[in-house]
């Protein structure tokens, strides 16, 4: 395969990323159980702790896709054909749908589920 020459050799890099994923997950679980007070205020529509969770999740996703799925070692144009649609469509969908959900919440009579 093209660019295989750049691949890290040996198994050390695999375990390095494993530890990274494990530590990030442990931090998430720790924060989720302890819920430190300074992260429990609302910033930009949701709790600060949720922003932290989302950023940590994206960090994990980056390492899984780039290293475990070897995307980093593919051709540049290949990487962009995968990354661009995901990076444009997913945040766009998330933005419009969640804004809509917030609005629906503000006008819905909360006491009648299912309607």
């Amino acid at each position, binding site marked *: 395969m093209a660019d295989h020459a750049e691949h890290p050799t040996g198994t050390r890099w695999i375990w390095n990323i494993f530890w990274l994923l494990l530590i990030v997950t442990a931090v998430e679980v720790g924060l989720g159980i302890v819920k430190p007070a300074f992260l429990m205020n609302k910033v930009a529509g949701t709790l600060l702790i949720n922003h932290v969770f989302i950023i940590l999740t994206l960090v994990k*996703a980056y390492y899984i896709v780039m290293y475990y799925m070897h995307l980093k070692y593919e051709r540049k144009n290949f990487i962009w054909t995968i990354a661009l649609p995901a990076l444009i469509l997913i945040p766009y969908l998330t933005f419009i749908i969640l804004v809509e*959900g917030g609005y629906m919440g503000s006008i*819905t009579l909360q006491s009648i589920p299912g309607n």
Partner: protein
Amino acid sequence: MATQASVDQSNENVWGGGNRPLGASYGKLMMWYFLLSDALTFSGFLVAYGLYRFKFESLWPDPDAVFTHFPFVHGEYPLIYVALMTFILIMSSVTMVMAVNEGHKMNQKGVTVWMLATILGGAIFLGSQAWEWYHFIVGEHGAVRFEDGRMAKIADADGTVLSLHDIVHGSDTPHDHHEKFATDEVIAAFKADPSLQLLLPGKEREIINHKSALPLVENSYVVQGANMKENEYGHPLFANFFFFITGFHGFHVFTGVLLNFIIFVNIVKGTYQRRGHYEMVEKVGLYWHFVDLVWVFVFTFFYLV
């Protein structure tokens, strides 16, 4: 493989059709584009979950109050069990990278061992998920659902959630998760003890005191566990999304285990050794890592946020 040399020599002619402009085989490309479309599907589901969660914020259960079990341990331990499931899946991702790594070295024995470990990891994950679904369906505390569709758990004066068992039989007798309670006995027990209050499922933990709870409880009925129509945890859509999204992910894991097994049989038979490369292991590996990737997001949006 063979393309490496020609790619380097005719770099300016990359789009001329003489070589592969994306520098990857057809199978690998198609696996990637399939995964891209699958990623969009899963984002659609998770975003839909977000939409209804925002819409019904006060009735949407706090995940900390839903997933609290751990095998062989009594008491409430939010997040620990899902963290274990996450660990299992990350671990099986590692063994998959190891298998791919051994494949590059054409080490048949190495690929066999690591692939088997990956299949085992997937199977353990599926088993853990079955266990979690089981407890989700059976339920823990039970709740009452009012005429207007809202629902609440019963709590003591401090706001600690009590199970239906606690208020009907008292909290000092052993707890049987499968006991079904009649609406009448629960209402009678609630009325008899003025220290009992109602707790709404949302993160704000709104409390309805005993006096204002009485007219609501009068026309309510008991909900235990979860199904597609209602669940004791909160808004009915919560369980629907839980079953659908974790179910769809579990279906992916199951398919992944199946594919891994087919590839495993071929590895053992020496098919890839004769072919001269283990690219099939890489392709199925891409799928397997994707399953792990989706779980990372499901973990965040179902259990953490």
